[in-house]
């Protein structure tokens, strides 16, 4: 699964959604194009806006050990669902400054960097429709509309 995850994160057309909750409990979803795997297999991405809702939510989740969710959708339709916990916010130092310079070069204008966030991956699951349906069938074979299991001949169709 880690290899699938790496491949998907390296797909330049992959859509990377991050869902967080803050102290009020309201869910908040954003896209994090900068998301990649670090050397330890954790998710790493930039938060560019210091006062953003995502930044505040990530702080909340780090302080209190709460999970965030990530959904990746590759250019070929493949998808992964990830659960993790924010474990680090880098706000200064060599890596921070290098990222800052890169972002300024790329976006210019008001572009800035608040923190480089690390989310420790706790769970990765396939998330494509076929995969989810097959998984449900395997775990809960009785759930679903029963006409799918009907012998068509016997009911005279």
């Amino acid at each position, binding site marked *: 699964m880690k290899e699938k995850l790496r491949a998907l994160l390296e797909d330049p057309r992959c859509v990377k959604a991050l869902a967080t909750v*803050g*102290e*009020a409990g*309201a869910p908040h979803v954003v896209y994090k194009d900068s998301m990649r795997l670090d050397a330890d297999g954790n998710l790493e991405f930039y938060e560019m806006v*210091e*006062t*953003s*809702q995502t*930044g*505040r939510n990530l*702080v*909340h989740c*780090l*302080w*209190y050990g709460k999970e965030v969710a990530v959904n990746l959708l590759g250019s070929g339709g493949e998808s992964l669902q990830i659960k993790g916990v924010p*474990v*680090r*916010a*880098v*706000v*200064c*130092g*060599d890596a*921070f*400054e290098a*990222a*800052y*310079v890169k972002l*300024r070069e790329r976006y210019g204008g008001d572009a800035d*960097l608040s*923190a480089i966030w690390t989310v420790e991956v706790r769970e990765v699951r396939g998330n494509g429709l076929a995969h989810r349906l097959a998984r449900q069938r395997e775990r809960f074979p009785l759930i679903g509309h029963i006409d799918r299991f009907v012998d068509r001949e016997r009911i005279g169709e």
Partner: protein
Amino acid sequence: MAQGQSDWRAWEPGLAEVVKRHPKVSPFVILKTDVQRRGAVLTERARRAIRPEKDSTLYRGINLESNADIPWGFLLRDGTSVLCTIEAEDPDRFERTREPYTIDYVDGKHVLADEGKALEAITWIPTPAYTWKKTRKGTPMWQVLIARPQRMDINLYQTCDFWKDGGMGCRFCVAGATMKATKHDKAEIPDLDDIEDAVREALKQPGRYRSVFLCSGTILTGAEPQDDEVNLYIEMLQRVGKYFTERKVMSQIVATAFTEKQLRRLHDETMLCGYTADLEVLDEELFSWICPGKAKHIGYREWRERLYRAADIFGPGRVSSGVVSGVEMAQPHGFSDEDEALRVYLAEAENLARHGVSISQQIFHVEPGSVFFRQRTATLEYLTAFAEGLDALSRKYGLTCHCDDYLTCGNHPNTDMARAWQGGGR
């Protein structure tokens, strides 16, 4: 463990218990508070692993001179700064009521530990790029400019006229002692050309600074009292301000309480956006005992009035007052009951908040060289309850602290917590 330090854990709740009792306070901030209260000792192997070219160890300022290989602060993994006393292992080191935390070096990482148990991996404050450069006059730049993780610090008058006025300095303060110990190495006011050279160089490091901070001991002289101090700030702020395209750039001074006329000059003639004048103590009688110079020359009520005027001029959330949290328990005149102290302190903090002035909590820790070096510091429970109360007041009155938060300062447990809510939204 030094003698006499063995019993304190038995009579006050420890870190884990305080974290449990205060679910609304960040556990990282509570840990920071405890380290600031107790200090930390570097093991020998941790000390050998320090790389001064990367890990900031040099410091020349009002309250500290450090040219050894020991850092003066570090960061927790959430980005919280911990500025605290860090000492080398030494059986003869100054003994405090509670033994310090330990900083060890394990598996290639520096870790903060207590009672032999590793608690958190830490990183050091990065050494700024200007450190070993020299000014045009040949002064090493580290001697005239300090760099916190995201802030540059200029210390102007590195002593205080209250100490010169028959020892009327604040009783917890080490500015007088630091000046005495370093007077052969530094001038009372560093050369402003040197500072300007260092600031210009510092500004060439992208991503390193979010604010410019200035502080100075009190200067009582001038055409009107404190005018010389105000003029010094104005000159330095203008020298720095000319390097920016914007008129106002994130900046803060921690200064004496100035008159309305002086505050207007600072606001109108410089880049300054945040103003702090430390009451230190939120009780008039204790203020007069603990800060005799401030009481004699300005007085508690006038100091507070000037803060209110400052909030009118700079705007709410841009004016604060530092409190040396826990010094109010100093004996023989301080509170003996922490609940009573908390009640009185939060009531006065609310009074200030109503006028747009927030409180910046600094943790009282005893240092040799201060009058109070034998006092006992407050419990972690008390300090945490106060931080929680202050955070609630800031939320209630909408007092953000962008000029004095975890990045633009990093020394106040209560303002460290504002990053979880300031900026609006839900």
